């Protein structure tokens, strides 16, 4: 479906991202190490370290981060944000970096586009499916007596509005 890109949307996204970047306050970071010690991913992946990310930002190496796969390996557990003694939120910084990376046209995991496509097509990220019981019998919403699934009333209008928002401000 053709969706027009509204200049005002691009402006708004730019404004939001600029504000978020200015709120990153990476210079307040004392590199104390609370965030990587709380982080479940840092325990398993050497490449991922919220403290190092904040350091790179304060050194102005944002472009390098935008290109790196590591900004996509946060579990969103929010321990870093909760425990930072300087009230810095590596989690929110990562969300901003992801949004910036997408706008700049850098690669990101495929699953995100599938998720977005499903929402544009049906209003939800997943379609109701049949599941199995432990005894391998088939069950679905109807056989379990659950009411019909919800979706936007006017799917076409919904997907045109949302599709326009998603496309606004993307480089390609």
């Amino acid at each position, binding site marked *: 479906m053709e969706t027009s890109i509204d200049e005002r949307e691009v402006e708004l996204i730019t404004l939001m991202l600029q*504000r978020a970047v200015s709120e990153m306050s990476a210079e307040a970071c004392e590199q104390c190490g609370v965030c990587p010690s709380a982080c479940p*991913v840092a325990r398993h992946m050497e490449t991922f370290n919220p403290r190092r990310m904040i350091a790179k930002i304060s050194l102005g190496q944002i472009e390098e981060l935008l290109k790196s796969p590591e900004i996509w390996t946060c579990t969103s557990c929010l321990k870093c944000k909760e425990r930072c003694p300087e009230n810095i939120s590596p989690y929110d910084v990562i969300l901003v970096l992801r949004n910036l990376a997408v706008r700049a046209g850098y690669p990101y995991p495929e699953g995100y586009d599938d998720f977005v496509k499903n929402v544009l097509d049906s*209003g939800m990220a997943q379609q109701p499916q049949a599941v199995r019981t432990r005894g391998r019998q088939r069950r679905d919403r109807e056989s379990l007596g659950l009411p019909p699934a919800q979706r936007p*009333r006017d799917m076409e209008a919904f997907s045109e509005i949302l599709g326009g928002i998603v496309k606004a401000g993307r480089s390609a």
Partner: protein
Amino acid sequence: MKYALYLGCTVQAEQYAYEASVRQVLPRLGVELVEMEGASCCGFPAFSSISSLGWHYLSARNLAIAGSLGLDVLPLCNGCHLSFTETQHALEKDPHLRQFVDQKLAQEGLNYSEGVRPIHMIELLHDIIGADRIEEAVERPLEGLKLASHPGCHAIRPSEMQRPDDPEDPTKLDDLARALGATTMDYPEKTDCCGSLLSTASGRTTLSIAGEKLKAVRDHGFDGLFTTCPYCFKMFDGRQRAIGATIGDRSLEVPVFYYTQLLGLAMGVEPEKLGLELNMSPVDGIVKRITGGSN
């Protein structure tokens, strides 16, 4: 007590045991659930990562639908609950964003309403209904069961977004389990993540993170784990076999429940009505213990 029931993607599409048990137990405790016609995804986690504007639009859209019903909204997922709360803050803070969202919602004939409160399941059960009232409803106490509570990250963090329980020392799910007659115990891994949201980027790390927690729950001597988050449940219950294979622990057999399933069992609801046949983890032993084998 009357709320707009927001299922969210995972519950509506596959986590039927949660929905079924919620629909069984809440009305018995005096809660009326109203369907949210026209609801859509909340936007978390994909839109928040790649289109923050799309994310806030989606969350605001659902809040607008609840508002049109004149009700507070009860999302069944930790992620959706945090998403709604974050969007409310963002719209309050940023008049440009608010104006944008209002304009987009108007195209579907919707109005954003500030007064809609996202109610968390833990808040509803613990703070609104109350452990005392739940205890009074118990017909089959879960005596002799030692259960590990798992609130899930977004139920407790970030504390600046009004979460229903303490970020470092959550106790409400434990209170709720004790109201059913079960025993609970604090454990060091209680506030740890299930790893779910990493599955898009690294499936193996996801399973390893979940494995650390499940293994700890078993090693601490718990009989089972319970939660109110469908993302976490899907990981610990549905993927337990894959988790065991990944961490090289084939004997990982931890029964996993939704709190509302345990509540239903304790209230005397038949296991089939609580979707207990849909749990993939080995729950039969505990279900038989509670029902006396009679079902």
